């Protein structure tokens, strides 16, 4: 794998990917005529994170919080509004399409929709052979041989080389997507909800496949999902996103045992518990309202309109993502009033005026339709 990697690693820096203050705005096409001022969807606003070699960073958040936008910024499918992305010691945040090309072999992506991510008019062999064709690595029989090797690697029958995507099941299609992404043994694989479109039994297979491949090739994953149990299973570190910002980031067990951000706490309390007796006993934290519009995000802490612990400070001042309540440096939360261990925030009541808590659902509904870059597909 190292012979094929086009980008040499300077030094032995342990961090493979460093994302610093990445901001991505999408212009909103205003429906009103003669409106001078342009609005922007604040899809990603000042996200910083790091992924170490061979590790898996889980990224969770509800639909529309900017997870996929962040992934596409890292892939450089979108240009950044501002911020810096360092991959393997190289700044890739402002590279053009051409100069980005060599890095494409080391950063690959597995897509959410096993149906939409494979071209229905092309044969599987040609889809998986795309990386070889685009980078001019192998052609003819040599390409076929290597494609069949990759197919075997991901558990596909190499005999199916000449089939069309429509002739495969959802799980097999996702394997095709994995094969395409892994054809070059990339260093970083961004998995954009790779299992959320699959049946539960198939989900486990794909997750196991990803785990096996990670062990075999020392892959680094950025794993995006909204299924918390999946994320907990696969991740070494988990970052929680809300409205384009990271509200908490921590090692997986640390996050589950000591959630500091009320949003994290609420999310975790929503995870279904398999044991019904146990499920009855626990306290669910119900958040009021909807996610505010990303066109006009709330002031201060973005979570304040829905937070049970909201106080005037939260409206006025934006909290910093930093360790809270004596946590280690790798557990950071963006909250003025972090949740203490054992605290039940379902009993908490906000101390801010009702006006500050009005959630503008109308604005979200309206703007959602006219957003240019934040449709239902890439909105998560």
């Amino acid at each position, binding site marked *: 794998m190292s012979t094929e990697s086009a980008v040499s690693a300077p030094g032995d820096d342990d961090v493979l990917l460093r994302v610093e203050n990445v901001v991505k705005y999408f212009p909103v096409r205003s429906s009103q005529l003669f409106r001078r001022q342009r609005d922007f969807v604040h899809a990603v606003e000042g996200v910083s994170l790091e992924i170490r070699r061979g590790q898996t960073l889980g990224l969770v958040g509800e639909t529309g919080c900017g997870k996929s936008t962040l992934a596409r910024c890292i892939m450089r499918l979108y240009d950044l509004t501002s911020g810096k992305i360092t991959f393997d010691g190289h700044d890739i945040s402002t590279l053009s399409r051409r100069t980005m090309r060599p890095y*494409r072999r080391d950063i690959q992506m597995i*897509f959410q929709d096993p149906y939409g991510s494979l*071209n*229905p008019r092309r044969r599987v062999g040609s889809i998986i052979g795309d990386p070889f064709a*685009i980078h001019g690595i192998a052609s003819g029989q040599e390409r076929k041989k290597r494609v069949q090797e990759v197919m075997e690697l991901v*558990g596909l029958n190499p*005999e199916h080389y000449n089939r069309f995507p429509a*002739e495969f099941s959802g799980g097999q299609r996702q394997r095709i997507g994995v094969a*395409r992404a892994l054809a070059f043994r990339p260093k970083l694989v961004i998995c954009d909800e790779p299992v959320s479109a699959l049946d539960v039994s198939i989900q486990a297979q794909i997750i196991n496949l990803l785990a096996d491949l990670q062990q075999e090739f020392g892959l680094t994953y950025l794993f995006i999902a909204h299924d918390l149990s999946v994320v907990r299973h696969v991740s070494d570190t988990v970052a929680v996103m809300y409205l384009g910002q990271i509200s908490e980031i921590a090692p997986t067990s640390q996050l589950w045992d000591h959630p500091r951000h009320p949003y994290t706490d609420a999310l975790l309390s929503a995870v279904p518990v398999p044991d019904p007796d146990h499920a009855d006993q626990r306290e669910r934290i119900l958040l009021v309202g909807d996610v505010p519009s990303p066109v006009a995000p709330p002031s201060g802490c973005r979570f304040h309109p829905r937070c049970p612990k909201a106080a005037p400070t939260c409206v006025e001042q934006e909290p910093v993502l930093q360790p809270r309540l004596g946590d280690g440096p790798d557990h950071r939360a963006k909250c003025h009033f972090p949740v203490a261990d054992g605290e039940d925030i379902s009993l908490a009541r906000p101390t801010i005026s009702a006006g500050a808590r009005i959630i503008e659902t109308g604005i979200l509904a309206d703007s959602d339709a006219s957003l240019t870059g934040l449709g239902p597909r890439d909105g998560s």
Partner: protein
Amino acid sequence: MSQRIVSAAPPPAEPPSAAVIEGSAAKKIEGRSPWRLGLERLVRDRAAMISLGVILLVVLMAIFAPVIAAIVGHGPNQQFSSTGLTAIGQPKGPNSTFLLGTDDLGRDILVRIAYGARISLIVGIAATALTVVIGAVAGLVSAYFGGLTDSVIARFIDWLLAIPFLLLAISLVAVIGPSLTVVIIVIGFFGWASVGRIVRGQVLSIKEKEYIEAARALGASPWRIMFIDILPNVMAPIIVYATLLIPLSIVTEAALSYLGVGVPPPTADWGQMISAAQAQYQYGAWWFLVFPSLALLVTTLAFNILGDGVRDAFDPRGDQLFV
């Protein structure tokens, strides 16, 4: 992510090893491309197949026009002033020498129809090819690049569609001078706007698909994405529209020739023949008008029915076209 998920539930439907084993049995099932499926549907369409037969006949007639001329012994531009015209200089009706009669100059109508088929088919196919190539490339570029490129091309298409085609064609040919090439270029250049619009609309939706994003993530160039990833997905509407464009081009060419700005005489051409026949019809020379008109009608009708069949075969849901 080191530990595997081990479930107590019955083994999942398709573990990796099972997928390989299952494949050995399934190997016999041959992958059929969407094209194969469409062709199979087309072959089952009786009306389309009959039309195809008619079109093949017209094509054979065009190819073997010299043979027909040799058999009946009349050249296409040969004027038979003694045998081909009546005593008072009127065209002769169908008889044993001139199977479909003669025209006002004593030429054999059968031979001229056969030669006219050549012009019609050449214009129909060449103008359509030109139309489709310009339209497809313009539509692809416009939709894929978007922004200013899209605005310029889209406005240009609007401008083209707003032009009264026939008036412009007449004045253009009048200025440049009539010839077969000019007719083809005029029809092709002013006809691509509708193809461009259809392709643009299709590409706009296809370019948002995840597989296009996947291609970009692999580092594919815009041209590769346009022609390898997108074009095969818009080929069905292009082919359907092209089969419907051929008869349109044939009729347009006939119209231009009818108006005297198409293929210049003495070249045999259906539109010209119809135009010339009009002057003779009132004196009873019905064959002069009927046979060329029939040739034009049958040919374009056959192409249209085939085009409908192609549309049904390649776009069975009928939801992709003519947006």
